[in-house]
Every structure is written in structure tokens, then in C-alpha cells.
């Protein structure tokens, strides 16, 4: 028996029952389409979180005082002062896997210009911070090494701050604003970055030399955090280890002592945040997978009814020379054709509805080729799996019994 003929036979049989075939397919169509859409939504939000995080900085490593790993227990104030400028300097001098490093000290408060005031945060940093956090200067200039050494009262402002302090569109450069009663001269503005996925305004900030914030604003000797960039993403882990070593020896910690600081990498943050979306993706895919399974059972159901209904036809085919294997193949091919056709339509609808979700709800979607291939493979296997049993039943019919079947 050649395959072409079996294929033709199966195709004709399906053609005779188009509507039923379509109804059977519907289960598969919905199953495949929902698997693809769900995965696209899951992957889309993962992607957007990932890109959001990579926008935060380049291979960023964040060092904070105290040990964050001690659960949610609130830590003593002294443990929050463990990072010193010397730590920063040691990292700059000794670490070999990082390309940039900056200390960070923050102070929140009102910024005042003339009659306008606006609450924001002054971020005391060094020049490297710009590279680490992917911030660039729009107009004006970045402060210099000299400014840091002299704790100069200069600052750069983000767009939100500018808009609020200079609502009339005045050029902010050269203007003097007040923060904590201290006058700061604006020497530059920052390129706007917009809101991040967590709804934070990334343009609501003011940058100043860390020495200025440390001495003139906060009057502290410690620093609040250190930011660094690993040379490449792959070096992040090595850089983290290296920094840990440097800080431990700086802090004269014994072998048994726990770290009195904590290091987080951007990579870690990314995997932490995306693990939630991964979970959501799996959950969605499972639900969609169940609908695919239900679709498969639909195939089995219809094939089973169809075998019973077509018992006489099977008997006739056998009486003109069809072997068991021919009958088996015919029904199996029918089941596979239904599931493949359903699968193809499902893929098209799935991709379509992903774009629809994106366009109408403006949710980020991302269709991974593997999800398409996967759901397609699953539905073909479903067809074979659920078509097998009824097909086998059909092939085992006795020709006379079948042809006499009423």
C-alpha cells in the first residue's frame, strides 16, 4: 500500500466531513493559539523587564553597607556606615575586572529656584557614575576631578527637576539653585530616560560631586554605596568575588566573620525579577497546555465516534483488499491531518492574537520561535497519540462483522 494513496483516501474522508473536521480542529486551534499567545505575553514581559534592567546600567555591581542577607531584620545604624571612601579607593586601585567605579551618597530635600521649589534627591557621585548608570549630559558639562577635590557647589539636573524649577523654559545652565540653604550652580542637564517599568521617574534627580554632598550637605565621612561596572557581563561574577575580597581585607574581617556589606549585581537583579515572569509564563503555558490536551481528547472522541459510524465503510474497504495496517494508517493520517491543520491555523491565530494583545492592551509580547515549534510539535504528537487508539480499533475490526454492522 503506498502512502500517497492512503493520504488521498484520508483526505477524501476528511473532505466528506468538513464541518466535523473543523469542529474537531477547533480544540487544537484554541489550544495552540493560546499556548503561543500566553508564551508571547510571558516572554514579552520578561524581555521588557530585562531591557529595563539593562537600561539601569552596564554590567552594574552595587555595593551597600550592612548585610542584606539577614532577612528582613532591621540593622543597627552603625552597620550601615561600614563603607568608607578608602573602600572605594581600594576598589579603584586593586580591582582588575571592573571598568568604572563610583561612590554614592544621597540626600533628599527641596530644591529652590526663585519662587519655584521641587522635592528631589541630590546624588553625590564621581564621573564614572555616568558610564555605570548610562546617563549622559545633554547640555553643559560634567563636573571635573577638580570639582570633586574642591567639593565644588556645582550640579547637573534631570529633566523633571528642570521642568519644575524652570517652568518658563529658561536655560537652566549657569543658574544657581538652592538645596539645604546651599547654593549650587547648574553646569549641565541630563538626557531624559523616562519612566522605568516600575513606574519610577528616572529623570527626577540632581547629580553633584560626592565630596560636596558628603561634606557640605550631609556632613558625614562614610559613603552610602558604591557602584561599579564589570568589564563584560561574563566578568560580573569574578568582579563581585574580587570586590568581596578587597572589602573583607579592608574591613579586617576574620575567616568566620560575615560580610558587613552586600554586593548585588545587575545580573542577579535581572534573574531575580525575571524569575517571577518565568513562573507566570510557565503557569500560563500550563493552562494553555491543558486546553491543548482537551483538544487532543476532542480528536480522540471524534475519531472514536467516526470509527463506529464508519464501521460499514471500514468493512467495505477490507472486503476490497484493505489490510489492517491500511485502515490504521488511514485513520491515523486523518487524525494527524486534523491536528496539523488545526495546529497551523492555531499558529496563525496565536501570532495574530499576540499582536492584537500588543496593539490593544499595549502589553509587551515576544514570540519565541521555539514556542511556535513546540506547540506545533505537541499538537502533531497529540494527533498521533489520540488518533492511535481509535485507529487501532478500526484496524482490528473483522471484515464481515464490520460490513454487516447496522
Amino acid at each position: 500500500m503506498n502512502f500517497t494513496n492512503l493520504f488521498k483516501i484520508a483526505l477524501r474522508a476528511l473532505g466528506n466531513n468538513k464541518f466535523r473536521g473543523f469542529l474537531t480542529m477547533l480544540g487544537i486551534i484554541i489550544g495552540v493559539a493560546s499556548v503561543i499567545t500566553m508564551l508571547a505575553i510571558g516572554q514579552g514581559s520578561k524581555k521588557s523587564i530585562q531591557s529595563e534592567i539593562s537600561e539601569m546600567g552596564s554590567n552594574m555591581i552595587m555595593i551597600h553597607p550592612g548585610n542584606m542577607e539577614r532577612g528582613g531584620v532591621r540593622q543597627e545604624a552603625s552597620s550601615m556606615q561600614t563603607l568608607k571612601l578608602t573602600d572605594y579607593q581600594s576598589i579603584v586601585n586593586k580591582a582588575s575586572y571592573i571598568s568604572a567605579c563610583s561612590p554614592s551618597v544621597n540626600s533628599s530635600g527641596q530644591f529652590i529656584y526663585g519662587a519655584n521649589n521641587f522635592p528631589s534627591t541630590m546624588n553625590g557621585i564621581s564621573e564614572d557614575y555616568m558610564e555605570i548608570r548610562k546617563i549622559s549630559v545633554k547640555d553643559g558639562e560634567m563636573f571635573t576631578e577638580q570639582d570633586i577635590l574642591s567639593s565644588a557647589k556645582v550640579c547637573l539636573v534631570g529633566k523633571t527637576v528642570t521642568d519644575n524649577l524652570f517652568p518658563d523654559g529658561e536655560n537652566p545652565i549657569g543658574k544657581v539653585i538652592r538645596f539645604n540653604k546651599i547654593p549650587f550652580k547648574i553646569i549641565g542637564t541630563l538626557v531624559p530616560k523616562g519612566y522605568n517599568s516600575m513606574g519610577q521617574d528616572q529623570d527626577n534627580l540632581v547629580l553633584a560631586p560626592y565630596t560636596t554632598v558628603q561634606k557640605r550637605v550631609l556632613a558625614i565621612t562614610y559613603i552610602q554605596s558604591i557602584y561599579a561596572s564589570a568589564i563584560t557581563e561574563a566578568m560580573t561574577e569574578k568582579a563581585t568575588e574580587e570586590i568581596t575580597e578587597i572589602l573583607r581585607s579592608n574591613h579586617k574581617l576574620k575567616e568566620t566573620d560575615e560580610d558587613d556589606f552586600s554586593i548585588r549585581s545587575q545580573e542577579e537583579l535581572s534573574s531575580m525579577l525575571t524569575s517571577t515572569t518565568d513562573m507566570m509564563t510557565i503557569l500560563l503555558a500550563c493552562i494553555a497546555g491543558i486546553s491543548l490536551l482537551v483538544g487532543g481528547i476532542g480528536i480522540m472522541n471524534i475519531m472514536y465516534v467516526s470509527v463506529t459510524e464508519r464501521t460499514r465503510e471500514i468493512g467495505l474497504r477490507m472486503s476490497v483488499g484493505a489490510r489492517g495496517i491500511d485502515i490504521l494508517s488511514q485513520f491515523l493520517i486523518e487524525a494527524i491531518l486534523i491536528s496539523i491543520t488545526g495546529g497551523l491555523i492555531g499558529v496563525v491565530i496565536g501570532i495574530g492574537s499576540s499582536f492584537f494583545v500588543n496593539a490593544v492592551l499595549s502589553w509587551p509580547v515576544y514570540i519565541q520561535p521555539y514556542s511556535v515549534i513546540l506547540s506545533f510539535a505537541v499538537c502533531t504528537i497529540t494527533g498521533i497519540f489520540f488518533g492511535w487508539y481509535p485507529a487501532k480499533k478500526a484496524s482490528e475490526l473483522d471484515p464481515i462483522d464490520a460490513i454487516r454492522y447496522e
Partner: protein
Amino acid sequence: MEKPIIQLENIQRDFIVGSETVHALRGVTFSIFPGEFVTIMGTSGSGKSTLLNTLGCLDTPSDGEYYLDGYSVRQMGKNERARLRNNKIGFVFQSYNLLPKTNALENVELPLMYNPNVSAKFRKEKALQALNAVGLADRVYHKSNQMSGGQQQRVAIARALVNDPVLILADEATGNLDTRTSVEILVLFQKLHQAGRTIIFVTHNPEIATYSSRNIVLKDGRIIEDKYNQHIESAQKALDLLPVMND
């Protein structure tokens, strides 16, 4: 002497129904030679269909030997018997058994679909030829439900002819048809007979026996009569005598 197409030796067929055994055939022995047109008659339940199914390799005897074209059918497996049905036998059923929603051509092509040695082109050619032979050249693309009973039965006969079988088996092939159509079908069978085909025709109607070359009568699973017909009547003549119906 010519070799027989069918050689039955003491064929028995028992059916076990619950705790009882039904002896449908209780030792049937006969031979049929090429070119014979044999009618098989007998009361209802005498075993005619069982015998025909056995001859058609659809059923296996409980005991006895059956040689078809020299091959022992009893020793064959399922698949071999399927191939035999495909190559050597043409079956015509009382209830036509055409594929639903399928046109005449495709119905007739069916046996050749299961023969891997037949090309699509040859298959269509043969099917058209067979349809032509039964006088349905103008109904090739009609679906089975668009044809009369007589036409459907002729499609079924064309289907039985299409694989050039050594044996044509018919189980009450005219049982569902009116007198005139029955005679028309018999004209067809006589033509096939004259063309040298071997035909076995199970019937209730004693009149049909007058058109065949030999008549076997069964009773309770045994042969009680086996006679050659010296004066074969012409079905065509009978048809000409029938009043033409006006509708």
C-alpha cells in the same frame, strides 16, 4: 482438464453463540471451473452467505480445505487474504455498500487504491472502463446518493470488475431492486459470463437460476442439489418482454 478456480473440500463453519454452536456449513464439497455462472439457492439460514463469505476470503472455515486459484486459503494470514481479495475477487453486496458522498468513479477506483502496483492514471482508466462496461459512462461524477438503487448496484458491479478478478461473488445482488432493474442487472451478469468471467450468485429467486449455467441448492449447511443448466435463458429477452414503465 482445466484447473478449477475454486475447490472446496468438506468445508465446515461453526459459529459459537453463547453456549450453543451453530453449524452454518456442515461439510460442503464442490469445484468451480473458469467461466461458470453458478447460482446458489436455499432457504433463509441455509448457509448461503456464510459459504459466499468463505469463498470471498472474508471468513475462514472452521474445518476443510479451500483452494482459490490453486492457493490454500486456510493457511493464509489476514494480510495475504486481504491481498487475495484485492487481486482475485470482486464482491457485490445486496445493499451496494458504496462509499457515501463519493462519486461513482472514486467508488470504482477503491479496490485499486489498495493495490500499490497500480498508477493513478491506470486506475482512472480502468475505473472508467468498468463504468462503461456497466453502462454508467454518463454517471461517472454522480455521487452515490444521487443515483437510483439500480445505478448504485451497477457502480458496485463496476467496482467488483475493476481489478479483473478471477471470481465475481454476488450476495443477493438484486434483492433490493424491482423486477425490471433486477433483470437489467442479470443482463449485465450474463454479459460478464459470456465474456468469460466466473460468477457465483447467491439468490432467493428461483427464476434467476434459469439464467445461470449451474445451480447449487443448500439446506442446513449441506448441498442438496447441484445441477448444470442445459438451457440457459437470455435475460435480455426477458427484459424485452417486460412492459416498459412510464413514469
